[in-house]
């Protein structure tokens, strides 16, 4: 999907096509898929569908920071963890249900993100990436080592499943619809944010932050907002995960999860929301689908990722080339010699 196409519909045909695709997707997510799931009636398929949806949300939320604003974020899983821990602690200590923990998880993750963003958002390129790496690690270590509060490595049992104002939604189909509704609403919100003047302002940071600054765009404020908003949605995903599995521990939110989410955004295509969604589906469904290959499945997944970056440097549906983004992030050490030698390390 081309961004300019959907933002400015030029004639009736495009406008109708612009509605057709979302309508088909909604039909698939809320009618066809649940019908299929109910037809097979396998807990495994429900589980995979829910897990894939949660990672769609994580990937879409990271898309806002990394895809649209072009900031390499290496600590996203930590905000996912803050959301999950908020939900788990509110449930286990105060006995609150999903209806309350869902928004609070998002707000808590956003608050933490805002606080850590205050001193770090003036950083650019590689320094920003390293700062987010450090933030992710710090939050992970807090979950692991603050034993009195988070129970540390013992993790927390979340005794309550999904519910809405006291009505239980813990049946398989009800749980699927809960996850699907929350994820769809969030993705629509992220889509509106990224395909708007606001999104274009974020893109201007990605393309040239100094130029954007000179034109009067408040880059620091925008970065902070994008970072906080993205953490909010990651927190929401965390709440979904906590209530879905019924048990969380710090291991679910370590660095490798951040990298997994980053890989989803990159494989799907940086800057493209459909890309981020497809990337998440690919990296969740592929390893499960390849279970029959035994020990080789990780190699296969790695191969798919490698080939997709090699052959499709913009990802499956990307706006921006991943290589170009990395090159700019590591700008000082990478240059074009201009003598036909190509691009390389200094």
């Amino acid at each position, binding site marked *: 999907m081309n961004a300019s196409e959907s933002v400015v519909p030029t004639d009736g045909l495009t406008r109708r096509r612009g509605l057709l695709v979302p309508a088909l997707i909604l039909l698939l997510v809320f009618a066809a898929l649940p019908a299929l799931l109910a037809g097979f009636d396998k807990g*495994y398929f429900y589980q995979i569908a829910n897990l894939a949806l949660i990672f769609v949300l994580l990937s879409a939320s990271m898309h806002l920071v990394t895809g649209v604003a072009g900031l390499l974020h290496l600590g996203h899983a930590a905000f996912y963890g803050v959301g999950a821990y908020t939900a788990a602690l509110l449930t286990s200590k105060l006995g609150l249900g999903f209806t309350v923990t869902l928004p609070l998880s998002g707000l808590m993750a956003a608050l933490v993100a805002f606080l850590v963003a205050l001193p770090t958002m003036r950083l650019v390129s590689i320094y920003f990436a390293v700062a987010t790496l450090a933030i992710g690690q710090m939050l992970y270590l807090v979950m*692991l080592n603050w034993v009195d509060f988070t129970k540390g490595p013992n*993790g927390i049992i979340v005794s309550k499943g999904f519910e809405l104002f006291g009505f239980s939604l813990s049946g398989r189909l009800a749980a699927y619809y809960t996850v699907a509704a929350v994820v769809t609403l969030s993705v629509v919100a992220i889509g509106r944010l990224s395909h708007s003047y606001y999104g274009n302002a974020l893109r201007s940071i990605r393309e040239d932050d100094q130029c954007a600054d000179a034109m009067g765009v408040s880059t620091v404020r925008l970065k902070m907002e994008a970072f906080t908003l993205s953490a909010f949605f990651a927190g929401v995903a965390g709440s979904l995960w906590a209530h879905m599995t019924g048990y969380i521990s710090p*291991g679910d939110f370590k660095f490798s999860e951040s990298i997994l989410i980053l890989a989803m955004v990159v494989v799907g295509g940086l800057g493209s929301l459909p890309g981020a969604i497809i990337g998440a*589906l690919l990296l969740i*469904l592929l390893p499960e*689908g390849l279970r029959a290959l035994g*020990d080789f499945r990780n190699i296969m997944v790695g191969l798919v990722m490698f080939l997709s970056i090699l052959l499709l440097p913009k990802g499956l549906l990307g706006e921006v080339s991943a290589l170009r983004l990395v090159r700019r992030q590591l700008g000082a050490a990478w240059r074009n010699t201009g003598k036909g030698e190509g691009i390389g390390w200094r």
Partner: protein
Amino acid sequence: MKFRLLTLTTLAAAGIAGSAFAADTVKLGYQLPLTGDTAQYGQDFRKAAEIALTEFNAAGKPFKVEIVFEDSRSDAKEGTNIARKFVDDKEIVGVLGDFTSGVSMAAAQVYKEAGMPQLSQTASHPDYTKVSKYQFRNIATQAQEGPYNAKWMAAKGFKNVAVIAEQTDWGQSVVSGFSDAVKANGGTVAFSEFFNRGLKDYRSLISKLERAKPDAIYTGFFYEDGAQFLKQLQQLGIKTPVYSTSAAYSPKLIELAGGAAEGVHLTSNFLPTDPSPNVQHFVDEWKKRSDGAVPGQFPAQAYDAVRIMLAAVEKASPNPTREKVRDALAQTKDFPGVTGKTSFSADREAEKELVKVEVKGGAFVPVAD
């Protein structure tokens, strides 16, 4: 989206094809890390399970057993996926695994809901067996091992001890199980700290620890961390005696630490040098499949866990169901395994006999006191 539909249909087709199976075969599931950071443990468990399974199927029983191995990578996401998959397969009557407590606990939430008996060879989380009546484990808990070691060290005259352990749920239980017993015996814990798994440099921990001047050090680590710690202790010239748990009991500890492992005291319930025929049989089979290497504590626990599960399936036959297998597991009493006799208590904890061991001349030697 189309891709996803396609994958789901393919998965479904594979599921249907897999369920066509002969009636006189009973299926078990085993979820374990076959790839990833902890793959070495999972690979050992699979090897041990295959030894136990081959023996069982060769013994001319009225039915055969098949074990479905699934790779969890020690990841809770994959662990719960596998749990759902096992529960969906109506022919699977019992599940073994997972390796880490975190994944075992996450999967246990699924098994609890579905009524599937789950027997882990290693999950040591204090709350694991409390999840539901379907969770069993074949590992001596630190609630048992801690007081045993505290008594042993007190008898040796070590009144003031330091305790360190890895920062995991298991490490937490090592410190609490041991420290409580030391205090109850009138001793003191001079120093207690956790370190993160895979730490490379223990020097700052060691110097802090030595400042507390303990009579002895009690440690909760697995062999990789243990070897690093012991080597650095030796490099710093510290002679304070070191005691450890059965988790460090692996030939690889001595292999990796070399001379630094000399004099380490630890507990175990598996001795490869034990002359009893079932131990020697297991050790021989293991050596055949691992270029002559000797099995450690964990593979032995996995071997016994699989055999306990197989015995329960046999007891529940003919036509074993998940409920019948659970009840048969709960009745396990004095099971003669390679890790000694095992009984499950009313709260599904393994009660095991412990043996005292010291490293002498590059080998584990049983000691009387």
